[in-house]
């Protein structure tokens, strides 16, 4: 019974302890509940609603363009080989913009063909004149016509284009370079050959006696001597061994009865001393010992002699080796020398060929130049022949003194054909004026803003190939704003450049307000003059201040939020609770009236000095409990 009571008491004690622990835990948790909860709440920074002035800014961005743009054009039809610049590159006057394929303008060629056709038609027309009826006139005209054709044929034979001459010049230059290269090569080879000859002379010329027989013989003799001494030592060792054995046998019992304490060695030494004549096969023990000592000395001497002979042999062998190396080097140098000689011969041959080719190229160039000079003369001759023919035809025609309608018509046709010829000639002259070399160079300094043609394409006559904006003529920038915004700025206002880190001291001034072609009457273009460290193509962000105004409710920009229902701010509402104040984020819908870089003017159910949430440590939803940031 007592045990049962004790158990009950124990259990009650345990339960009591459990209850105390439970209540203690609940107390501790309650004490720290606010702290723990606050840790989990988003922390917010607040600012009160104020009144004041808002200076709104108009912001916009645009690309800087130069005030003046130069269009690069050519008056010929040429194929572009390479476009040497890229869009955005800055070029100086004379910089290569395009490299053209070799050859004449196709347009010029066509015009020349057309001119030839027109002239041919003109002559046909004159020949078909109804007034040519006398045979003498006819013969004269025929003769003049043949003369013209001959002159044309002769002239055409001398027709040489600039491109041909340029090509021949380039060929001459190539050949000159080739000849020079060959000469340089020969010079190099000469130097190398001289160097090799010097090296060859430096090598020892005397032959080395390759005979090793004397050293070999001495070495063999020493070896034989060594072997014989070894044999002698072995024989002496054998005799000494046998003598030692015999002595030990005899001495074992010598004077044992008198001196039993003597060792075998002492007995042997005593016996030998007492019996100097005792021995084996006539040799005493001491003699045998002496013999063995002598044999050892002789062996050592033979060994020394052998070592010396061996050293002499190896020294000789090394001498021979060095000598053979030098001879191998010499033969290698000789082989190199031969190769170089061959190369030199080949180079000389090459130089000869190059010189010949250069002479030929020079001759060709001279011929072409002469032809070109002759062409003008021959062309004049053609013109003179044509004029003679024309004069003749006209004189025949005029000699008829006819006033018929047919004559008038014929005259008109002749005039038309003549006019056509003149026009074509004029065009050709213009083309020839515009005809340049094989490159198109920059006529002005500036930045390449557009390239309208690519490599492989053919240029059109007087059509823009490239646009270069001239940097020294100033820069412009423009962007579109609403009409309301445009009304709040005036010409001469300066704008701030924002977010541009590559240049400094950039000044933008509003120069003009123009209609925006893309704005359908709803927007205007603000045009700024940009000065300072900018270049065409730069993207700039500008901010220009509007006229300022006073507002009742101004909140920081960060306090204004928006969602599908529009703009709103979150205010902090305080609620008292037994465990302290609770702060609740409450939504207040607002209308945004104006804003600048930091503040926004709003209207809505806010009162001055309401606290609005500006930033929070976590995303907020209206109605959420928050924690105020500790200052």
């Amino acid at each position: 019974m007592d045990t049962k009571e004790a158990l009950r008491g124990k259990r009650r004690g345990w339960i009591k302890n459990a209850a105390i622990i439970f209540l203690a835990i609940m107390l501790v948790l309650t004490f720290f509940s606010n702290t723990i909860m606050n840790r989990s709440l988003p922390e917010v920074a607040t600012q009160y609603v104020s009144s004041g002035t808002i200076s709104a800014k108009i912001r916009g961005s645009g690309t800087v363009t130069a005030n003046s743009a130069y269009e690069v054009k050519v008056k010929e039809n040429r194929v572009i080989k390479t476009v040497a610049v890229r869009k955005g590159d800055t070029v100086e006057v004379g910089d290569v913009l395009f490299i053209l394929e070799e050859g004449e303008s196709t347009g010029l060629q066509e015009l020349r063909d057309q001119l030839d056709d027109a002239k041919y038609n003109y002559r046909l027309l004159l020949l078909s004149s109804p007034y040519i009826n006398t045979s003498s006139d006819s013969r004269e005209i025929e003769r003049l016509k043949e003369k013209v054709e001959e002159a044309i044929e002769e002239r055409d034979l001398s027709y040489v284009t600039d491109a041909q001459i340029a090509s021949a010049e380039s060929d001459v230059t190539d050949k000159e370079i080739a000849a020079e290269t060959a000469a340089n090569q020969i010079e190099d080879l000469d130097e190398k050959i001289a160097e090799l000859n010097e090296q060859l002379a430096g090598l020892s010329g005397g032959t080395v006696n390759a005979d090793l027989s004397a050293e070999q013989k001495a070495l063999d003799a020493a070896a034989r001597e060594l072997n014989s001494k070894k044999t002698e030592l072995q024989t002496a060792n054998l005799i000494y061994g046998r003598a030692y054995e015999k002595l030990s046998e005899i001495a074992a019992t010598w004077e044992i009865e008198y001196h039993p304490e003597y060792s075998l060695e002492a007995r042997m030494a005593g016996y030998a001393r007492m019996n100097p004549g005792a021995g084996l096969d006539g040799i005493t023990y001491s003699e045998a010992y002496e013999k063995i000592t002598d044999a050892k000395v002789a062996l050592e001497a033979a060994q020394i002699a052998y070592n010396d002979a061996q050293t002499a042999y190896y020294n000789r062998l090394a001498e021979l080796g060095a000598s053979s190396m030098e001879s191998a080097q010499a033969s290698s140098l000789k082989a190199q020398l031969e190769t170089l000689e061959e190369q030199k011969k080949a180079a000389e041959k090459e130089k000869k060929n190059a010189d010949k080719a250069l002479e030929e190229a020079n001759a060709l160039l001279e011929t072409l130049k002469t032809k070109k000079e002759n062409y003008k003369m021959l062309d004049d001759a053609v013109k003179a022949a044509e004029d003679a023919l024309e004069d003749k035809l006209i004189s025949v025609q005029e000699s008829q003194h006819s006033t018929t309608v047919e004559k008038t018509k014929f005259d008109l046709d002749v005039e038309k054909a003549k006019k056509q010829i003149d026009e074509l000639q004029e065009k050709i002259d213009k083309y020839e004026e515009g005809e340049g070399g094989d490159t198109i160079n920059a006529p002005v300094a500036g930045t390449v803003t557009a390239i309208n043609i690519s490599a492989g394409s053919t240029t059109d006559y007087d059509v823009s190939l490239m646009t270069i904006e001239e940097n020294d003529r100033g820069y412009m920038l423009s962007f579109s704003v609403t009409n309301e915004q445009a009304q709040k700025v005036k010409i001469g206002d300066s704008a701030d450049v924002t977010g541009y880190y590559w240049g400094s001291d950039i000044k933008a001034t509003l120069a003009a307000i123009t209609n925006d072609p893309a704005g359908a009457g709803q927007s205007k273009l603000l045009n700024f003059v940009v000065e300072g460290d900018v270049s065409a193509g730069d993207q700039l962000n500008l901010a220009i201040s509007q006229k300022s105004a006073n507002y009742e409710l101004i909140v920081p920009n960060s306090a204004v939020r928006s969602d599908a229902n529009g703009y709103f701010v979150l205010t902090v509402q305080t609620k008292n609770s037994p465990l302290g104040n609770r702060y609740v984020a409450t939504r207040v819908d607002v209308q945004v009236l104006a804003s600048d870089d930091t503040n926004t003017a709003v209207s809505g159910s806010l009162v001055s000095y309401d606290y609005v949430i500006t930033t929070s440590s976590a995303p907020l939803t209206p109605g959420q409990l928050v924690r105020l940031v500790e200052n």
Partner: protein
Amino acid sequence: MRKAMYALGRGLLFLTALLFAIVFLMPTVLTITNSFMSGTEIAANYGVVFSSLSNTTTYISDQVNLKFIPDQVSFSQYATALLKSPDYLLKFWNSVILVVPIVIFQVAVAAFAAYSFTCYRGKMKEALFFFYIILMLMPYQVTLVPNYLVAEWTHLLNTRWAIILPGIFAPFSVFLLTKFMRRIPVSLIEAAKLDGAGDWKIFTRICLPMCRSALYSIVILVFIDYWNMVEQPIVLLSDAEKQPLSVFLSQINSGEVGLAFAVATIYMVPTLLLFLHGEDYLVEGITYSGSVKG
């Protein structure tokens, strides 16, 4: 044959009792096991029960899924109740603040009243005791309205006294303790009187020690009764911050089902500890056994 029939009868009785035990225990077990489920799992299992409360929410399951074993044991509900939200802890202490004075003072008042009803003689005594019995028999809802009116008249409405004062003077414990004290032999009290003991000595040295089991029973029963009260706080305490945790448990909504399981589990701990501590006395006190020793 008779023996076999007796064994069969016992077996059937055992099975029936087991069935009832399972049925009665199931809600408690369900509460405890479900308190370890995450909010998502609770919503998936029981969300449909609360779908009528919230028209906007769509639940995964279209029927209630009674589950005893969580898919993944989670302490998130406990963390929310104990760490993230001081409200529940506050309500727990509200319960303690309301119940502890009621229990202490009700037992004290009942002890004095029971001694008076037992030892003093007078014409009004029986009538007064009868009045107590009548009061005890009345459902609580009947006295709730007069309670409210009196509390308002005395300006105690929306204060804890509106709950504590009626609780202190509740008739049930007076009735139970009187019935128990009357079983103390009169000879024992008279012997004490002869020995020169006064009323205070008789009350403290004889009556109270002999009624220990009954006092324990009263403490447990009153504690359970007031720990679980719902109507009185709702009617008499309009301020939600003063209401006990039992009111929150009666007003759970769809988002707080899992939390309610965890809070209910925490909430049953004090009752359970008290019951375990006085379990023996409770049985003894209720069955009136062992009233007089030696």
